[in-house]
């Protein structure tokens, strides 16, 4: 079979057994791979209403059809599960080289169920799966240590997916790491893996991925890279990377600052692209990607060299501006600490910013205030070990706010802390956060591209934003429907693919040319399937912290001062969103919509 391997590896941690099942090709035809195929497998294999912490709640690793080929940016892996943090679906994407190695080992997907009696490492060499005790050696290791240990002990060429100590203590925003700096960050998959007593999966594959006519495919890829990938539209990611966003987003008053109390950070110039270029030492790439966006930076922190890839914009925003930190050395150290302990930087920055805010406001003294770099870099370790103030901070933003009676400070959606764009400076992000299938996330529809980066549409209006969030109108707007097909691919955002390019790539899989409408329809099918899953499992109302839309809480200073969506407009926007989606007033997709899209599952009666 071309592109797909046709195999799903099912690992049961409870019984220490591994079995191989054929990939469901009917689902692959409907949902392509990546996000779509993940959702279909989740629908089938997640027991309805399962307690996310229960051993029966599976962790899914899904590849895209192009993983293991030389199609740029498509080496990404999607880690999926019913998240123990949010209680709804969470699809978290990560680059690096794990997904291609899965394909070379013979698998399109890996499903992990059960819970091992003792901490365990799973090693996979092609069709040989072994369960290795993680104690005493591996349990407790930081992420770079576990990776190196498994390269030394198992296979020098092994690719690993592991948790740091934060995953072992079941931190609700513990992430999965691969190739050290690459994280499936959001939604607490690290905690889910930790709850299964699974420290790491190490995989080595020596097989192949076929693509039909090899020479013809190779020749087409040369053209596609030249015409579509290595263009000015994408090479900014190589030359500057996401720190380029700092000045732009801050300049629009949309950079979350001091726990979302402001939208403009006066210290941002110390954390902008120019500042990072001064400490840049080299470029790295994900597997099979010609763009090579990974910037390696180096600084000194108390006499010790801190070297690593990143930080990316979101880390700069949440770990920098949102904590009032303008010291690039401290930010680099924070990034390294989060990487090593295995914490998502967005949620970590959000919770530290909150603790600083509560301390400043006198709500509770966490011993750390805005801008205190020395104390702040200690927090990821304290949080991961649940030590000192870290024990409380590891509750996460929502539960911490509930505990101290300050719900108005809780900057999250569906218990996922929001990333680095304040909707008061980019109105479209309001609908993006509120209706995202995994909670407070910027990756499903990204209005910032048009509102701030290109400036193609005005930022301080809701006009056209709901339409844009759903489908590609205006055409450059990254919409939910389009990101859904894109994450089936799994294309990275740094190849700014459009429906036409997606169609040209899918031609190789389907053997026929899909119209742009058909491409978008697959995306909409995937989005609706995700909605059904969330409804089945019980999802909170689609909403946003009031601060971000109400007239009463507009910023009083900075470039976005005085801008507010307004309560009436916000309510109307949500209504319009459901209407345009073909969903009823409660956000349930109608039968007509599901039939039109060819979604092959239905909600059970009564859900």
């Amino acid at each position, binding site marked *: 079979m071309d592109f797909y391997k046709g195999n799903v590896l099912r690992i049961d941690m409870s019984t220490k057994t591994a079995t191989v099942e054929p990939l469901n090709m009917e689902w692959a035809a409907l949902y392509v791979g990546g996000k779509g195929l993940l959702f279909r497998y989740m629908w089938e294999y997640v027991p309805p209403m399962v307690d996310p912490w229960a051993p029966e709640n599976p962790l899914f690793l899904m590849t895209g059809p192009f993983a*293991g*080929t*030389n199609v*740029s940016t498509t080496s990404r892996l999607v880690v999926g599960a019913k998240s123990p943090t949010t209680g709804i679906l969470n699809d978290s994407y990560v680059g*690096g*080289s794990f997904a291609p190695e899965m394909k*070379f080992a013979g698998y399109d997907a890996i499903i992990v169920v059960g819970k091992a009696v003792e901490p365990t490492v799973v090693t996979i060499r092609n069709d040989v799966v072994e369960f290795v005790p993680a104690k005493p050696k591996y349990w407790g290791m930081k992420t*770079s240590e576990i*990776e*190196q240990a498994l390269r030394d002990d198992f296979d020098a*060429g092994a690719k690993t997916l592991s948790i740091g100590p934060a995953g072992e203590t079941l931190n609700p925003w513990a992430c999965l790491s691969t*190739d*050290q*700096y690459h994280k499936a960050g959001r939604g607490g998959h690290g905690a889910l893996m930790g709850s299964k007593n699974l420290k790491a999966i190490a995989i080595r*594959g*020596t*097989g*192949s*991925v*076929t*693509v039909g006519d*090899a*020479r013809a*495919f*190779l020749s087409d*890829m*040369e053209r596609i*890279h*030249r015409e579509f990938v*290595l263009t000015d539209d994408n*090479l900014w990611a*190589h*030359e500057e990377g996401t720190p380029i966003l700092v000045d732009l987003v801050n300049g629009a008053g949309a950079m979350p600052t001091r726990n979302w109390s402001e939208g403009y950070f006066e210290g941002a110039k110390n954390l902008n692209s120019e500042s990072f270029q001064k400490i840049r030492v*080299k*470029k*790295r*790439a*994900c*597997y*099979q*990607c*010609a*763009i*090579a966006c*990974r910037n*390696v930076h180096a600084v000194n922190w108390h006499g010790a060299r801190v*070297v690593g*890839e990143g930080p990316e914009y979101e880390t700069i925003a949440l770990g920098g501006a949102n904590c009032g930190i303008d010291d690039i050395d401290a930010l680099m150290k924070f990034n390294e600490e989060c990487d090593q302990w295995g914490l998502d930087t967005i949620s970590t920055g959000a919770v530290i910013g909150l603790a600083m805010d509560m301390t400043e406001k006198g709500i509770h003294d966490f011993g750390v205030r805005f801008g205190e770099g020395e104390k702040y870099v200690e927090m990821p370790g304290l949080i991961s070990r649940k030590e000192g103030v870290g024990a409380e901070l590891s509750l996460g933003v929502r539960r911490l706010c509930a505990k101290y009676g300050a719900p108005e400070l809780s900057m999250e959606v569906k218990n996922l802390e929001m990333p680095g764009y304040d909707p008061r400076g980019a109105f479209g992000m309001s609908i993006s956060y509120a209706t995202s299938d995994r909670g407070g996330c910027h990756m499903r529809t990204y209005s910032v591209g048009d509102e701030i980066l290109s400036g193609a549409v005005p930022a301080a209006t809701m006009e056209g934003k709901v339409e844009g969030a759903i489908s590609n109108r205006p055409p450059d707007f990254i919409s939910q429907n389009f990101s859904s097909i894109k994450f089936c691919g799994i294309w990275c955002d740094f190849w700014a693919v459009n429906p036409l390019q997606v169609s040209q790539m899918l031609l190789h899989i389907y053997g026929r040319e899909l119209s742009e409408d058909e491409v978008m329809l697959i995306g909409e099918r995937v989005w609706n399937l995700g909605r059904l899953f969330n409804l089945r499992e019980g999802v909170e109302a689609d909403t946003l912290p009031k601060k971000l839309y109400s007239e009463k809480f507009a910023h009083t200073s900075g470039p976005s001062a005085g801008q507010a969506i307004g309560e009436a407009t916000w309510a109307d926007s949500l209504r319009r969103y459901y209407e345009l989606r073909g969903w009823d007033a409660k956000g349930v997709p109608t039968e007509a919509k599901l039939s039109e899209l060819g979604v092959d599952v239905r909600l059970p009666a009564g859900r």
Partner: protein
Amino acid sequence: MPHVMISRKKCTACHMCELACSLYHEGAYRPSVARLRSECNPTTTEIKGFTCLQTACAKCQEACPEGAIETRVVTLEPEGAFDSAAKFEGVSAGHVLVVDENKCSNCGDCYDACPYGVIHEHPERKVAYKCDLCDGTPQCIVFCQNPHVLAIDLKIDKADREPVTRA
């Protein structure tokens, strides 16, 4: 004679070269049998490239008891951008070392002799396989495509511009 080299300073370890190499030679993406290698420690981000230097090294040829590694003329038609492109003006052919699979007994002497670890036993065919510059159009160079990277170069030694036949 002509051979490819990976610059460890420029290489980003995207492995596009290995992927293209394997697809060209094996008809499938299979980097574990690529004819060249880029190794990266993901934590330190240190990168090392391993490529065959062809007749400029020829340790495999010297070690082979069967005379199975032949010096062959290859017509050079490099495509894509690479640093030394200008040096190939007017150079139409060069020599590469090629395994004659009929003669190879898979004794392994060349595997031990190769200083760069770029000649191996093929997992199915059970004979040695190595870089042959893709019949004159090295695919690793074609796919080291990012204009800001161009980590793979096609090299040619001055002394080797005239065809040389080693014993």
